[in-house]
């Protein structure tokens, strides 16, 4: 089935819009052409994927399962928990045996969530943040940026972005996008992406809201001239609205305690991001940049039965987001630590996390969950690989890290079940299984920073510092 869903021939009514010619305000956003109209190098992309809990362990005397791939470095078989990725085996690396560089307040679900992508401590309660980090352990927030946000803050010739985030003109409408499905209320066990110390980023969890925000402006007007006038009016209006809100925020800043400046400043930054977007022309549908189906709304409260549909919808947006260059750095968080999702579609009657600690041997069910997540991921990855970009595919220009907040369901933090997929434009030497037993996962994160173009970076986070990269990856 690998090539059956290639979207390049999609020519919808909207795609025709491009051929009609559009005026300046609606000019096609053509990131893939450089200033002289030559086809430029395709951008590098980074995607983090989170799925919950560790690999199936057992609390019985049966002992833990060993999901280590069988075979040699280049000739290996994936374990059941990753088996659905087998068709893409030549485009992935399984670094087996990493010891998670995570630590801090709370218990493993909490500091695993805060540390897995950051290499940084989960902090004790303080600075106002103080909530249940699992089992009554109180925690604050994490203490450092996640690898995606580090890449997003930088710029360079071999990085996803050529200009820094404060540049007046941005290359994409969104510097990063955080998406998720049924991720719970904000606490240290439900957030995995951090912009900085104490600054978790919440995922958008309604697929329809994400679609409307990202693709809503694609809708083609029947009359381009009228559309241009409307677009200019809209920009004028929105600029005026946001100017007024900005003035109010600045006035409020003079009225609040210095301890609250961070809140006002974060709000001002959010308004600036909206303003910047007014100057970024939205993409126009092409044979590569196609519109996804508009998903159903997830509604106000998480509905367990809709989890598979929402997961498919969110993951399904990613290839379109990257192909249309809406952002080059994204994350998708499926559920969260302490996952309450009951995989009824797999015949389960107890929630994922509940089953991970029952005395009966649930390994088969837990592995079925892991396998299911891998299958969801595979569908998205294959869609990335079905989009041609230059000599390769979109997947070849992308680096995907799939991680989880625990090593095993019994809270061992080694071996960390993670997979790297894609190519990062040749930076990832794929098709390999590496035994990197007991090496700190911070090394893998450093390698990711280097593969994304931050060559000189040798350290991440505040737990295992100055580790350098994972040398076996090279």
């Amino acid at each position, binding site marked *: 089935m690998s090539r059956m869903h290639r979207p390049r021939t999609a020519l919808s009514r909207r795609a025709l819009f491009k051929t009609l010619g559009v005026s300046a305000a609606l000019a096609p956003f053509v990131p893939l052409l450089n200033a002289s109209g030559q086809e430029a190098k395709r951008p590098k992309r980074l995607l983090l994927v989170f799925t919950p809990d560790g690999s199936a362990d057992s*609390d019985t005397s049966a002992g833990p399962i060993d999901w280590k791939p069988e075979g040699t470095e280049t000739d290996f078989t994936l374990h059941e928990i990753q088996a659905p990725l087998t068709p893409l085996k030549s485009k992935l690396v399984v670094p087996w045996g990493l010891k998670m560089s995570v630590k801090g*307040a*709370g218990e*493993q679900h909490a500091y695993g969530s805060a540390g897995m992508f950051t290499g940084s401590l989960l902090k*004790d*309660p*303080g600075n106002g943040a*103080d*909530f*249940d980090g*699992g*089992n*009554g352990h*109180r925690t604050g927030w994490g203490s450092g940026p996640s690898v995606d946000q580090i890449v997003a803050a930088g710029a360079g010739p071999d990085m996803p972005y050529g200009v820094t985030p404060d540049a007046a003109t941005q290359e994409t409408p969104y510097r990063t996008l955080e998406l998720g499905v049924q991720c719970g*209320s*904000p606490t240290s*066990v*439900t957030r995995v992406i951090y912009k900085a110390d104490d600054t978790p*980023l*919440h*995922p*958008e969890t*309604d697929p329809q809201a994400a679609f409307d925000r990202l693709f809503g402006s694609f809708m083609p007007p029947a009359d381009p001239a009228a559309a241009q006038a409307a677009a200019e009016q809209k920009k*004028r*209006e929105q600029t*005026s*609205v946001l100017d*007024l*809100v900005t003035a*109010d925020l600045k006035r409020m800043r*003079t*009225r609040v305690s*210095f*301890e609250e400046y961070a809140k*006002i*400043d*974060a*709000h001002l930054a*959010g308004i600036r*991001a*909206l303003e910047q977007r007014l100057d970024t022309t939205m993409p126009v549908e092409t044979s590569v940049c196609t519109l996804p189906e508009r998903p159903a709304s997830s509604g106000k409260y*998480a*509905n*367990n*039965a809709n989890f598979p549909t929402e997961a498919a919808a969110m993951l399904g947006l990613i290839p379109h987001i990257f192909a249309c260059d809406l952002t080059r750095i994204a994350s998708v968080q499926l559920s*969260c*630590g*302490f*996952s*309450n999702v009951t995989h009824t579609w797999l015949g389960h009657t*107890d*929630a994922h*996390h*509940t089953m*991970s*600690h*029952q*005395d009966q041997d649930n390994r088969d069910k837990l592995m079925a969950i892991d396998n299911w997540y891998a299958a969801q991921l595979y569908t998205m990855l294959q869609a990335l690989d079905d989009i041609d970009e230059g000599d390769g595919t979109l997947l070849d220009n992308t680096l995907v890290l799939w991680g989880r907040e625990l090593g095993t369901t*019994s*809270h061992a933090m080694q071996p960390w079940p993670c997979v790297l997929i894609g190519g990062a434009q040749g930076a990832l030497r794929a098709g390999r299984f590496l035994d990197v037993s007991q090496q700190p996962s911070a090394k893998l994160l450093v390698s990711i920073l280097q593969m994304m173009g931050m060559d000189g970076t040798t350290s991440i986070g505040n737990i295992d510092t100055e580790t350098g990269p994972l040398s076996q990856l090279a």
Partner: protein
Amino acid sequence: MTTKRCNGVARALAAWSAAGLLAGCTGTIATNVASDAPAGGAPNGSGTGGPSGGTSPAGGSSGTGGSSGGAGSGPTAADCAAETGAALKIGRSRLSRLTRTQLDHTLRDLLGVTGSPSSALTPDETVGPFASNALAVVTDLIVQQQQEIAAKVALDAEARMAQIAPCELATGDACVREFITTFGSKAYRRPLLDDEISAYTALFGVGGRPDNGFRLVLEAMLQSPFFLYHADVGPAGTPSATPVSLTPYELASRLSYFLWDSMPDQTLFDLAAANALDDDSTLESQVSRMLADSRAKDMVPLFHLQWLDIGPTELGSLASAEPDLTQAMLAETSDFANAVVLDGDGLLSTLFTASYSYPRGGLFELYGLEQPANFSDGTRVMLDASKRAGVLTQPGFLVKHYRGDAEGSVVHRGITVRENLLCTPIDPPPATVMATALPPVQGTTARDRFAAHETGACAGCHEQMDPIGLAFENYDGIGRYRTTDGGVSIDATGELVAAGDDLSGSFVGVVELGQKLATSRTVADCAANQWFRFALGRIESPDDACSLKALHDGFAASKYNVRELVTKLVLSDAFRHVRAVGAEDTQ
């Protein structure tokens, strides 16, 4: 300060499972490596899996919570009498963003918006068990979600422009200015400044047409921080490190967001404009008026569902499998709380002892009752008084704190009683404990399987929760009454261990538990503290000790009437003042 410890078992980073199942509870106890709670107690947000909604008592000086039965080491009357004027102390208030329900209710009262626009917003943070966006900074996503909500609401409101604007906007500048001045003062919950009126007038002009101008003004107002945040600082307009009185408008908003979960109405605005709100008799009469208003019926369930940690977001997998039944459970506890607190005797004890409830739909079957002919929802129904007593035997509570198996439920129901109703936090389990469940075995009950907790390292904490949870064993996973478990008769004997003089001791079943809770000063003081947290969106600090003492004493004097408690809370120094700078926090 340190948090209360159970029998010296140190808090530690633990390899422990959320299910709280400690059959294999052995092993060494690590030294304490996690930090203690900060001054002012520690909110314990409602997490996604662990025991949630727990709360810890305020600092030692406040004498709240704990198992001291309220006697504690709090300030004396003389202490508090001296603490007036310049010596007044209250805890710090944070700049906080409207919660989801506050946004919905405000848009309803401001613009007649129906439905739940806040569905599009990232979920709220919690302070204690209660929603309050006082901690984390906003993210770009939240700012954009607020922008999208504002744009949609404003666009929808265009059709109602004639009803919303006080005059015909097409007639020109005078009307535009009148609209901006009157509507803006409601959206900002205070009169607009001249600069603000000018800015909005200019924005109206950008629209080109009256309907466009109207829409843009609304869009901006609904994104303004003066709409989105509670930013109380007092009349000087700058933050103070010592307590100052709220401005009349700030007080009106604090009152309305507490009692209605929404913006002030015209009566409150008028009182604020006349600077006639901040005296005891006016506040008392406003509380009476507001509790009689239908908007109070939004607030009372909001408090009780969060207090009991029965949030609508997670009623286990039941919410997906049986959405109607789940809604019926939430409606039952909501109707019950409204009936007792607003329309009934108002007594805290009734919440734990009433043998009636307000079932609807599938709940009749669950209670083993026939739905009466011509039954209308919200009608009182008498239940079997030997099996049902107040909120703790209502399916909403029983289901929410069920954990997929009997063992988890014993622990979690016990923890919720301890933490949410007694304000006694339970420490997490010691390090190296590997929690595992005991499989249900035919011929054994949860009580048999829980014997493992009664010895060794586990006992110190588990004796505080398990014996409470075991008393709930008469109720199954969806709240039905049962008398056997695993084929064996259930022994619903429970015990409150180390819970103070007025609570400690054994009892049988939740009906008797409710009777004990109903007469306990510890429970009453804890309930008062929970109302304080709910009203102010913050955890009490040691600086609030005298406000809390007045609250506790007033509640006791009223024989624990919740309406009186609410009134006393509004009259308290902590409610009527603000301290916006935290540097002066006492430790």
